[in-house]
């Protein structure tokens, strides 16, 4: 009986996660960044937030944090993978170039491109009739490789305010 209960609970809890993953893959702003686990090991940061959770977060924040709630409401998904490169930029840059080719083939617009000896940054945006569908940020430097994919709409001006409202102490400054 206990085993049956455990299996039933596990199945119930795993349903929303599986649903969120397939939900993200079907969206137009989704980009597959491939896998660098074999080269760099487990990602230092890996985040996959689906639309259902974002809507729940938005509803929970609606009364006390209206700006954060508005930002979450416009998002359909957030994915990020961060690998420690340890000075080995080659594989990450190769992955970045592959992703860039896919982005260009799928009509994403390059917004910012920085190519320097010790760091490369690529920012792409996908829009459909003035409605933003996705933002992709790729950063590769001596310390880390960042692959960020935001699905839905985001206003960069809101980020500072929302981060203050989310009240989470985060330091990702690697410079």
């Amino acid at each position: 009986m206990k085993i049956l209960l455990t299996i039933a609970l596990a199945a119930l809890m795993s349903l929303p996660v599986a649903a969120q993953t397939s939900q993200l893959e079907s969206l137009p702003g989704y980009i597959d960044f491939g896998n660098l686990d074999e080269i760099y090991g487990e990602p230092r940061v890996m985040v996959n937030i689906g639309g259902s959770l974002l809507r729940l977060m938005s509803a929970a924040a609606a009364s006390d944090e209206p700006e954060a709630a508005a930002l979450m409401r416009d998002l359909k998904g957030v994915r990020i993978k961060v690998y420690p490169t340890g000075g080995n930029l080659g594989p990450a840059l190769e992955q970045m170039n592959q992703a860039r080719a896919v982005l260009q083939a799928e009509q994403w617009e390059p917004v910012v491109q920085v190519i320097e000896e010790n760091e490369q940054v690529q920012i792409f945006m996908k829009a459909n009739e003035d409605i933003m569908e996705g933002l992709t940020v790729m950063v590769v430097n001596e310390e880390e490789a960042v692959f960020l994919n935001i699905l839905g709409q985001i206003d960069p001006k809101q980020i500072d305010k929302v981060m203050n409202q989310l009240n989470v102490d985060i330091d990702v400054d690697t410079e």
Partner: protein
Amino acid sequence: MNDNTVDIANFEECLNALIDGELGELEHQSLLDAAADSPQLGTRLAQALKLQQALQAIPMEKAPAKLTRNLRKIPTQHRAPRSPWLLQPRWAIAAGLLALLFATTLYLPGNSQTELEVAQGRQDLALALAYLDNANRSTNSRVRSTLNDHMLMPVTEHTSRALQRQL
């Protein structure tokens, strides 16, 4: 509840069903959609979730010992003819308790799971935004410095040439 869509008219009904743990997955999704679309409904959903948490936090008080003793005496004072074992009250109570235990097992972890997911989601979102902000700042400063490197010289040369022409 047969209708899976949630509007303002049946929002209250859905909130009650949510608090009672009787909301289906599709209705739950529709409720979230409706709350996401309307700040007013979002506020009411947030209030309902707080009420739900408050209800869960209320401790169960034990019945007075005297009342318990009196209740225990009733079966011996009014002994009814024995019914088949499956229909006897103790089995019905046991079955009810088992059903309640099962429902509680399913319901309570679901709520705490949702709260954990929201808290984790906020932290994850803040982390992703921090990386986005970092990339944004980094590229902005580079674009500014690159523009300065290229623009300072032409402006200087152009200005000096114009001044020389005037002289």
